[in-house]
């Protein structure tokens, strides 16, 4: 059992290069997200995969998808202000809808009608988040109703995890050459890492998302595992300063 998620993460990391911030980080992130959606739609039992990046307040910032239909369904949720991805973001949990046709008509009336009319029967939305740090949501669409199997759910969660890592690294200017193994931990269940995130937020006076990115950037620059850096922060041996990159 213990290996299964590690395997999922390894599978997803193998499928995707790291973001290579070569100049225009925003453009590089968009390119990377497009590749991620294409890789995910192939790896998962899905007919479409879309990703929406949102601001703290849930306003859509960037949307990418494996195809134009998925893209329009993703952005439609923000036009309408309703849909599984909007709920996943605001409720901090996956919103899994194996049969859109069976959804109560009051839940997302306009979105459900539009999705069904587009031939989508099931949608599974996973928040891109680490604790209270929220970046957006990943949507998996299927043309047939039915549950996403446990292994497919695990793989979708791994795609969400790797997307979070890629976004943080783009923000923290972590080089594409960074060894992913050395940075494991942002979603790895090491509570010291989460505590260090909260501490770094206070030390730098920045948002939680920025603190996550800065910690990863520091670990990469110092060529040290994130967990070791986090331990130093929590045990008082290290305090990031506003001018350290």
């Amino acid at each position, binding site marked *: 059992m213990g290996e299964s*998620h590690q395997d999922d993460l390894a599978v997803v990391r193998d499928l995707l290069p790291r973001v290579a911030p070569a100049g225009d980080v925003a453009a590089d992130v968009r390119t990377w997200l497009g590749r991620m959606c294409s890789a995910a739609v192939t790896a998962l039992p899905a007919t479409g995969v879309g990703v929406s990046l949102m601001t703290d307040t849930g306003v859509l910032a960037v949307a990418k998808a494996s195809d134009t239909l998925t893209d329009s369904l993703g952005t439609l949720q923000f036009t309408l202000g309703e849909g599984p991805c909007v709920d996943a973001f605001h409720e901090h949990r996956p919103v899994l809808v194996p049969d859109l046709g069976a959804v109560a008509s009051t839940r997302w009336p306009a979105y459900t009608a539009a999705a069904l009319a587009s031939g989508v029967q099931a949608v599974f939305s996973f928040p891109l988040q680490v604790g209270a740090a929220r970046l957006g949501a990943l949507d998996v669409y299927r043309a047939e109703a039915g549950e996403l199997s446990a292994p497919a*759910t695990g793989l979708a969660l791994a795609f969400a995890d790797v997307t979070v890592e890629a976004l943080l690294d783009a923000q923290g200017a972590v080089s594409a050459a960074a060894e992913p193994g050395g940075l494991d931990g942002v979603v790895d269940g090491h509570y010291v890492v989460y505590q260090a995130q909260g501490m770094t937020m206070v030390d730098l006076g920045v948002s*939680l998302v920025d603190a996550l990115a800065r910690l990863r950037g520091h670990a990469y620059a110092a060529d040290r595992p994130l967990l070791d850096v986090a331990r130093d922060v929590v045990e008082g041996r290290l305090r990031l300063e506003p001018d350290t990159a």
Partner: protein
Amino acid sequence: MATVAPARLAEVFVEVADTLVDDFDVIEFLQMITTRTSELVAVPAVGLLLDDGRGRLQFMAASDEETRLLELFQIQHNEGPCLDAFTLGTPVVNADLAHAESRWPTFAPRAAASGFRSVHALPLRLRSTVIGALNLFGTDAGSLEPGDVKIVQALADVATIGLLQEKTIRHGEVLTEQLQHALNSRVVIEQAKGALARTHGIGVDAAFELLRTSARTHNRKLVDLARVVVTEPHTLPGLMR
């Protein structure tokens, strides 16, 4: 170990029923389950782990810090009674740590070095699905009596019911949604502990107590307050300066 007084058991179940209202605090609830399990069967340390949806366990609650470290140790080394109970879906009862090295070569010596002599783990089960495990660490070689095991399993079942917040989970997706939410709530609390610890110059355990006290004082859910601590600290001038 003494079998539980029925009156005390009744009190605990009344407390549980009082807690399981709409929109209750899942972290406080699990914390209560570990603390009450510890008291009821006179086992000094109790911890609770949950499946993270990727087939791996994550720490959720423990009656004390040493237990928390032992739970994390099991996750890190992918070995120990909690993992056995989770993987096999069957209880581990009265395992003697002095004779458990062949079974858990890294965990058994570590737990023994922490002063524990016996260990027990009960799966959190929803019919055929196992969603986590409840772990008990004893400092004497004395065994849990069959009556005690039933009580602990009942508490594990109560934890499962509370977590899933529904009498019948008809679909796997509800399970995934609830578990992921609970797991993320724990992460939010760790982030808030870090922020509070740094702001007040205190340790993370003291920061957790500060968060709990403040949540109770203001009648807020632990996770809701923790979320505000790390996303809108300026709205909490008393707590976050």
